């Protein structure tokens, strides 16, 4: 087969072998962020603002510095003032400069010989605060006269006269809304709100920094992207990237929340100042208070539909707040809101608003779940009002190949119709429901990304293969990358081992985000394998004394291509590798690319719930996920993404939220009151994988990680609304909120 032909028949891709890191993870040997130590290591701890908004008039660290065992104290004064807004915001979030912008914002840090001394030292730091008025609610922050979180951050696209907290505006869509709505038999307009939720990874952020006196540094940390950490930290330390090596540990969950830095620059600064390695491990309380939750939102949706179910127009006004710093999440929400539909008239208007809350970090399909929740709720209500089957209506309006998407481009091969048809055929959709029960469904969408990727593939002389790639494995990617290398090389999976490189060992790799790794690293791995294959074919050609072009690679061996090439028995990878020294030296392949063509992903979720009419408690009875994976490389881990994403969405829909007091302080900074779903809350999560190949990948792979968190919000809201007969328009649908709606219904 020519090396650039798309492959659709597989030998090992699509099987379910054990993951290479499995043994270490079931025996406790795997090393995560907090498991690293270094001789002479100090413990770093961070002092955080107890105020939602306060000017820092002065910080007196002298008493802390004088405490025995304290080796370094730093504040923002120890970090450079950076020009670039993007990086300066990240640095200011790591260490407040001038103003504390939210409850939990770091203001100083110490490094001491042990944790108890470090804790004691924090108490000795005197911060003189001037408390300022605060605002934590997105709608309140948008009002004229609201306390201004940061001045001068408004972009040119925001009309004059708005609150300074409004930092950006965006608008997407096409067609003529008034004439679209004029064609509708029914128009529903509703407002929705969603609370900020946290990624909720079980591993708190942890890092170990070691700066030497000649200006070199090493940093070990749990991150979704060691190269990006290097970029950020090198600039914040005023050092060259080459002098900082960042090594990613095993990572205990990220979901987008570990795509940036929080404690890493602080540990580096403390290490530089103390001359000793410094380890910082966040407490859970710090994770909730000072690392990224997602945006909170307030949204107005208006959709028109004909009586036979065709959507004639859709309009959305989205207001997002990602805390005290500007962000562009609103743009993704604005583009994703109506992506599942083929619409003649569609428009979304987005606003980003500053509030005194922690800086948003990416969370699985950032910006999409809330916007699609609101749109899918109104579509469901229209179906109810018009007496239409909600799946048939989705199918009637579904985006497909050739549809001009709501965000502009025309879709290529996409799997939405296939997932909707699979849902229609599934017995779940027609199973009977009991009293107080309801069934909901929702479509979901995510763009998926590719990005900068490097892979180095080395053929060892014993016939095994090592793949070195630069993306931390957050969901089983080492297994899927090994599978793709084995597939391409035609050798068993067990002969391949995949390693995650430190920043000194490969070129730049984008972070593990955007559902990019199986797609982009897989693509680079396949290309690297093909380079190695070309090399191996050349070696065989030399040995046989024939032209390179006369050799082809079949099932893990070089073979003469056709009868005219000569009669030689196939020469396996192991045989070629064994004589590599004699035939020209080590054999390797590598590939570096900024990958494009990730291929968008669609899913449909179906859920049954039962609501206790006396308490407002919702029980999820049955849940089925349908999703297009392009090609499921390791189906177990594709299912795992679908199940895990669905359950995070269930938590978001029902119980998870950042709760602020009137004082602007976060009231539930712990797993006790920030309620992620526990095992007993859930039914089995059934999965149906569809495989509509992505034309942009040699094996047809699409990213699968983010789409599954998008549909659950609306699917559950639609199920609950149908169960109780009241349209629920605010998340989470916690029992007090739901009971209140039930009682107001009478």
């Amino acid at each position, binding site marked *: 087969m020519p090396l650039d032909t798309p492959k659709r028949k597989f030998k090992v891709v699509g099987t379910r072998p054990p993951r290479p*890191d499995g043994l270490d993870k079931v025996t406790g040997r795997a090393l995560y962020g907090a498991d690293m130590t270094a001789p002479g290591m100090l413990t770093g701890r961070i002092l955080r603002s107890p105020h939602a908004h306060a000017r820092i008039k002065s910080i007196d660290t002298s008493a802390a510095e004088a405490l025995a065992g304290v080796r370094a104290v730093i504040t923002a004064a120890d970090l450079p003032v950076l020009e670039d807004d993007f990086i300066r915001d990240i640095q200011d979030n790591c260490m407040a400069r001038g103003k504390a912008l939210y409850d939990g914002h770091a203001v100083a840090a110490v490094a001491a010989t042990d944790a108890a001394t470090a804790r004691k030292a924090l108490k000795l730091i005197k911060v003189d605060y001037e408390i300022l008025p605060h605002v934590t609610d997105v709608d309140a922050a948008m009002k004229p006269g609201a306390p201004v979180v940061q001045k001068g951050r408004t972009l040119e696209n925001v009309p004059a006269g708005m609150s300074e907290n409004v930092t950006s505006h965006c608008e997407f869509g096409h067609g003529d809304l008034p004439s679209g709505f004029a064609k509708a038999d029914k128009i529903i307009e509703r407002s929705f709100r969603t609370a900020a939720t946290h990624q909720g990874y079980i591993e708190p952020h942890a890092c170990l920094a070691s700066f030497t006196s000649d200006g070199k540094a090493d940093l070990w940390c749990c991150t979704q992207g060691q190269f990006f950490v290097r970029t950020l930290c090198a600039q914040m330390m005023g050092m060259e990237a080459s002098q900082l090596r960042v090594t990613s540990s095993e990572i205990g969950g990220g979901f987008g929340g570990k795509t940036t830095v929080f404690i890493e620059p602080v540990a580096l600064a403390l290490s530089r100042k103390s001359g000793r390695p410094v380890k910082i491990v966040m407490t859970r309380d710090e994770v909730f208070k000072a690392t990224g939750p997602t945006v909170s939102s307030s949204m107005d949706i208006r959709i028109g539909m004909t009586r036979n179910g065709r959507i004639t127009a859709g309009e959305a006004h989205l207001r997002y707040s990602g805390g005290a710093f500007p962000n562009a999440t609103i743009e993704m929400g604005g583009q994703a809101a109506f992506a599942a539909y083929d619409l003649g008239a569609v428009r979304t208007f987005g606003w980003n608003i500053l509030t005194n809350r922690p800086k948003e970090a990416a969370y699985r399909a950032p910006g999409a779940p809330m916007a699609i929740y609101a749109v899918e709720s109104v579509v469901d209500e229209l179906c109810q009002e018009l007496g239409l089957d909600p799946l048939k209506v989705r199918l009637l309006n579904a985006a497909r190949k050739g549809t001009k998407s709501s965000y502009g481009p025309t879709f290529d091969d996409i799997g939405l119709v296939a997932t909707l048809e699979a849902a229609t055929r599934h017995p779940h959709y027609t199973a009977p429901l009991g009293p107080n029960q309801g069934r909901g469904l929702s479509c979901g969408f995510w763009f998926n990304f590719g990005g900068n990727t490097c892979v180095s593939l080395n053929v060892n002389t014993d016939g095994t293969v090592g793949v070195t790639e630069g993306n931390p494995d957050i969901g089983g990617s080492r297994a899927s990358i090994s599978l793709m290398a084995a597939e391409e090389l035609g050798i068993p999976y067990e002969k391949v081992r995949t390693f995650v490189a430190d920043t000194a060992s490969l070129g730049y790799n984008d972070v593990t985000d955007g559902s990019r790794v199986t797609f982009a690293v897989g693509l680079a791995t396949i290309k690297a394998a093909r380079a190695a294959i070309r090399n191996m074919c050349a070696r065989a050609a030399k040995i046989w004394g024939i032209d390179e072009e006369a050799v082809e690679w079949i099932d893990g061996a070089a073979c003469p291509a056709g009868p005219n090439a000569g009669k030689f028995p196939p020469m396996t990878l192991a045989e070629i590798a064994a004589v590599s020294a004699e035939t020209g030296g080590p054999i390797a392949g590598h590939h570096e690319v900024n990958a494009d063509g990730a291929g968008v992903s669609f899913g449909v979720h179906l859920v049954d719930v039962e609501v206790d009419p006396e308490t407002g408690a919702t029980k999820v009875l049955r849940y089925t996920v349908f999703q297009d994976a392009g090609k499921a490389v390791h189906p177990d*881990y594709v299912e795992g993404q679908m199940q895990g994403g669905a*359950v995070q969405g269930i938590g978001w829909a029902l119980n998870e939220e950042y709760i602020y007091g009137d004082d602007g302080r976060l009231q539930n900074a712990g*797993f006790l009151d920030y309620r992620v779903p*526990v095992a007993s809350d859930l039914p*089995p999560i059934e999965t149906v994988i569809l495989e509509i190949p992505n034309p942009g990948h040699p094996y047809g792979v699409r990213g699968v990680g983010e789409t599954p968190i998008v549909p659950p919000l609306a699917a559950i809201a639609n199920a609950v609304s149908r169960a109780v007969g009241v349209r629920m328009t605010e998340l989470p649908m916690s029992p007090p909120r739901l009971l209140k709606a039930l009682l107001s219904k009478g």
Partner: protein
Amino acid sequence: MKSIHVTTTVNGEPAEFICTPDETLLDVLRNRLGLTGSKEGCGTGDCGACSVTVNGRLVCSCLVLGAEAEGAEITTIEGMASGEALHPLQRHFIESAALQCGICTPGILVAAKALLEQNPDPSDSEIRYWLAGNLCRCTGYDKIINAVKSAAAEMRSN
């Protein structure tokens, strides 16, 4: 703070350590004994990542003082396999893809082992309630429940 000398048994072997009175058993395991398989996800008993058994009883080691280990028998994830041979739960977790990031896995395995020791044939619901104190954010729990069930079935048939 005056340190305390503690004599105990960890994974069947005698162990001694010195700790301060306010150090937790989890601190001691990780920082004094080098047993970093038990993880700190919250430090408040809400996530279960630090699960160990003390005298056969499943506990969160973050809610036990190191000093309380005096004379006790403690088992951790590091004591679960017998030499090279994995415990059936460990094997089934790998085979059933019951882990993604793996940070909750040690705690869940220790907890599941404690369950099967007292209930060799638990229902789905019994497994889900028993493991309610072990948060997992990656898997949605589905494959974990299946792995516990298949390990239990194998253990019953042996």
